[in-house]
């Protein structure tokens, strides 16, 4: 079947919806058929947010089945772990290493797992892992809220996406307010340039 499935995950407030819609818009501009499935409302209040973008001629279902994501873009490390069931050995993981601890863990007996442990679990599923400190790069771009744009730059550099880099960049810029455009441009380039460095080997 002609399909390319992208799962975008993170924490409410990180821009998961925006990132998904950017990919959807860019897909339409590329002449691709697309479905972007979002969740609004109660689920968004600081909770885990999961969106899917499906590209391809034969795509009907809004959602991605377990084991069938080609690309998992995770704006937070444990969120990638939580959605591991969507991956297969070919799946590319692009993970923002900047962790956000759920406030609930401080009043429970659970701990936020070590970052190395998280990546070991991801590596057990797929060897295609890109890890990046998007917060650091977003700060370099002058706006900590551009972490999602850093991630879009990163996945664009991976060449897996059936959307051209220039078009994706243009789409992001066309969808945001003027005063944030410059920082997002820089964030996208920083993400793009850090592709080689982000590859986790072994």
């Amino acid at each position: 079947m002609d399909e390319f499935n992208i799962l975008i995950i993170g924490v409410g407030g990180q821009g998961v919806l925006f990132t998904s819609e950017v990919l959807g818009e860019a897909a339409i501009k590329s002449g691709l058929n697309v479905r972007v499935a979002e969740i609004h409302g109660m689920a968004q209040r600081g909770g885990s947010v999961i969106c899917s973008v499906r590209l391809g001629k034969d795509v009907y279902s809004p959602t991605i089945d377990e084991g069938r994501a080609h690309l998992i873009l995770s704006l937070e490390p444990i969120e990638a772990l939580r959605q591991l069931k969507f991956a297969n050995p070919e799946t590319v993981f692009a993970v923002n290493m900047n962790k956000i601890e759920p406030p609930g863990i401080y009043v429970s007996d659970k701990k936020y797992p070590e970052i190395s442990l998280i990546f070991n679990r991801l590596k057990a599923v797929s060897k295609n892992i890109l890890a990046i400190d998007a917060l650091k790069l977003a700060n370099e771009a002058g706006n900590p809220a551009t972490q999602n744009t850093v991630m879009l730059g990163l996945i664009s550099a991976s060449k897996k996406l059936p959307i051209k880099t220039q078009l994706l960049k243009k789409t992001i810029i066309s969808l945001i307010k003027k005063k944030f455009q410059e920082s997002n441009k820089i964030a996208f380039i920083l993400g793009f340039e850090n592709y080689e460095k982000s590859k986790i080997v072994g």
Partner: protein
Amino acid sequence: MVKLEELITLHNGKLLLSGNEAIVRGAIEGGIKVATAYPGTPSTEIIDTLFKISKKVGIYAEYSTNEKVALELASGAAISGARALCSMKHVGLNVASDAFITLAYTGVRGGLVIVTADDPSCWSSQNEQDNRYYARLANVPMFEPSNSQEAKEMTISAFKLSEKLELPILLRTTTRISHTLGPVSLNPIKKISSHEEFVRDTERFVMVPKNALVMHDKLLKKMKKALQISEESPYNKIIRKEHKEIGIIVSGNPFNYAYEANERLGLKASILKLGMSFPLPVQQILDFIKDLKKVIVVEELEPILENEVRSISSSLKQRPIIYGKLTDNFPRSREYSTKIVMSGFSKSLSLKSIPENIDLTKKTSNSTPSRPPVLCPGCPHRASFYILKTTLGKKVIYCTDIGCYALGIQPPLQIGDLLICMGASLGTASGVSQTLKEPAVAIVGDSTFFHASIPALLNAVHNKHRIVVLVLDNLTTAMTGFQPHPGVELTGYEKIPIENVAKGCGVKYVKVVDPMDIDVAKKIIKNAIALDEPSVIIMRHICSIYERRQGVRHYPYKISEKDCTNCLACIKILGCPAIHIIEERVKINDVLCCGCGLCAHICPQKAINQTG
């Protein structure tokens, strides 16, 4: 996401639209004049968009106080000749049902489309009821789109059909239709003329018993006509494939899963896709199934189609075997996926080997800490719950309500013992109080107060119930995305303060307090709980996110490393998402912190202070 300008001005081309936005576009292409709604996920963006563009496209749009009022208003407009659209979430139709069911008797003159947005899997709802039953209950036609393109087209068709039959039409979406974005081809926006006039017709429009009986018979006649229309509807169509013995019948979003499952399993079964799903095209279904040996019915939630297909098939001499939920091949709760439908197909057809491995599930171990939705940083409800916890504690029963404050049940605050539906906090608190012979607390939001709480408040006053009604007034309808309500300041609208309503209902003890004035608020609650009559305490403080969106910023707070003993009181008592432990030390994230100062108030060491 879509630029509103494009949505209302483009005459051709393609846009990426959610189902909700596509319905808006359909309404514009279809000549809408009046739009009403009470916001509710997953339907909200319909009225949000129509409200924003109302002036530009020359329509009347309003956020009504509740769904019943919204539908009554839309009915009045449609009976007066205007094309009207009324949108609501599935449970909203319960509120509107009294008007809805009799409205089918009177019918309408201008087209009336009622959008019901169902929520399988309870993504943002208290139940997952199946509103396809409402089409049967009221006897009105129903459309079910499978994607955004169809959502647009069916909205236009529904207006036309409504005027042809002089009946309201239900357009049913589910979360995955409402909130999935897909390409939509646009058609020109033409000026559609309408004639607005109230033509008196007592026998038709005044539903006293004598007239109602006659109109009921007329409704049944109209639905016979609707059946003929359904038989010929382009929305009810067969996707023909090679297999001669197996057929699939499906409507709405499950079509997408059934289509992909059919491809992935290589079944080559023909699919009867029902877009006009009530009344069902009986003859078309008979023609489709008569030569088949096996028919699989795919539908989320209730086995409605399945039951009706079974009943339709009883007139055949040779009946195919019908598979669905009643044969235990498909689940009756939660939304579907392609995988679930593939599994249903496999069970129904006893497929021994599935061509592809569909179980790639790598179980995530439950050591991954969960991340449920929580109250936002700076949320004034956090202060209200802290006040309740430290004044009344576990001594009273807290009947809560629908809104952000339902999240008060999360640790560490954990306030909320009973929650049923919009406005139920007051009535249930009265019931608990009368039975236990002790005071009970009702927690209700500002918008929910106006929506469905006022009759229950009058009831509590009249019957002298010992309830403390805590109105958590954050000056907006926050949960659904900051819609206005009668209690807020809005240019061109009349503001009705909640305290005036409470006093008008006869409540004697009515207080307004800022939950950030913790000591004052505590005193008021202690006074109220000692009363032998109902009281209303309005905890008024603007929603922190809404305030930020309006450009108001407060300096964040900071923990003094010198004074902090790392006792973790701030974290363990409040659970604010802006407070973290980094390298064993408590820190406030200055990007997330809204500067509410609640943590500074409760810090035993007074180690937290505002910056700037």
